[in-house]
């Protein structure tokens, strides 16, 4: 009898624990939902010009080890890079437990000289570890747009990134500070180790193929999806825009990002 009393007590403690956890969860969810519901339903827009290309010239893009920017496995070429916050994040995991979905990005280039390579960086909610789209091997995805505008002057405001596994980069697309002494927004992208962080986030033109593919196009406006196939929470999403020529004065890129729920 004593044994079963203890069993009941133990099961009771577990039930009370779950009940309290649900209470905390529900209270927080309601408070959080009130704050974010309005923002989630709106598309997020961003625009950059040639002065937002702050990094380069360089042949590689950030990862735990430098990886290529252009199509192929080996870093090559002189690329100028900007990082744009998309303001919307994809949600992965079990669709029965969360509102899962991808991010649709509509883009429009003006006066693009050479090739633009679009890559994606997602930051883990909380500790900021990063994912990026795989550049080589099975599961590679990427998006390349080529333009025909004449190249501009060599930019004087760019500096190459320093290779490592942690990068503090300026976020383009946000309003520039009026006072030049005020620093721009920055974000920290870091990778734990080589081979991790390459298989969570992808670029695709076909939502039925969430692992993505490599797309090369000459369309200066179009759209693609950013998908997430992991189970963790993505806290922030950045689009890396890299161009392999100095851009003319009229260069611009307008982006509109929208969360697209995966229909069950």
């Amino acid at each position, binding site marked *: 009898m004593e044994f079963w009393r203890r*069993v009941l007590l133990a099961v009771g403690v577990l039930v009370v624990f779950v009940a309290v956890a649900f209470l905390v969860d529900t209270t927080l969810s309601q408070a959080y939902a009130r704050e974010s519901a309005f923002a989630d339903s709106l598309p997020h827009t961003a625009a950059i010009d040639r002065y937002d290309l702050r990094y380069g010239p360089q042949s590689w893009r950030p990862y735990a080890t430098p990886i290529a920017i252009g199509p192929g496995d080996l870093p090559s070429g002189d690329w100028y890079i900007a990082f744009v916050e998309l303001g919307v994040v994809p949600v992965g995991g079990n669709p029965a437990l969360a509102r899962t979905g991808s991010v649709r990005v509509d883009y429009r280039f003006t006066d693009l000289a050479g090739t633009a390579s679009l890559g994606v960086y997602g930051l883990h909610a909380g500790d900021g570890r990063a994912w990026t789209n795989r550049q080589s091997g099975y599961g590679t995805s990427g998006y390349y747009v080529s333009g025909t505008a004449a190249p501009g002057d060599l930019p004087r405001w760019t500096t190459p990134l320093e290779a490592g596994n942690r990068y503090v980069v300026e976020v383009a697309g946000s309003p520039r500070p009026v006072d030049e002494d005020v620093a721009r927004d920055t974000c920290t992208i870091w990778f734990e180790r080589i081979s991790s962080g390459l298989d969570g986030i992808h670029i695709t033109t076909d939502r039925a193929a969430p692992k993505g593919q490599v797309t090369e196009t000459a369309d200066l406006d179009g759209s693609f999806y950013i998908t997430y196939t992991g189970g963790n929470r993505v806290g922030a999403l950045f689009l890396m825009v890299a161009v392999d020529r100095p851009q003319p004065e009229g260069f611009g890129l307008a982006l509109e990002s929208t969360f697209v729920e995966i229909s069950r």
Partner: protein
Amino acid sequence: MMKRPSYFSLYEIALLSLFGALVFVLRTAIIVPIHVPGSSGIFWVLPLIVGTAIVRKPGAGTYAGLVSGILASFFGIEPLHVFDVFKYTAMGITIDLVSMAFGYRLENPVVGFVAGAAGNVVKMVVNYAVHLLLGVQGVFILLGIGLSSATHIVFGGIGGIIAALIVGRLYRAGIVHQDDVPDDG
């Protein structure tokens, strides 16, 4: 001079170390692809409960948990690295406490369920606590804690029931004796 006998015999230390290593191996080798929090607990609690049931001494689960935590910390299989030792050890301590509270009747599936569920959910709590200590915003952690705690209890409980069935079979087969634990190294 009389040599003071050690708390665990050599046999028990070897056994618990192997079970601790097995937790780490299962954690590394088996990925449950259902993306439900706590689902891997179904495997984690198995070696700890079976090891505790065989040794039947206070501290057995803690020792096996500590071994798995040290392995997980040094191999860096999870983002918390050295802090992983806390959650694995906490799981072991909890299984120890539950086993002691129920007089080591770990062959009983109900006790197995309670031990597995409690171990897995305490591991979750310690994991969240470490994240909080490291500066992760509380809202990111607490959003979803309701479902997460329920799934941790369910999967840990299932692992505990499986462990109890294994322990029961070992007792019945005479491989392990409930009242005659090998004690001499």
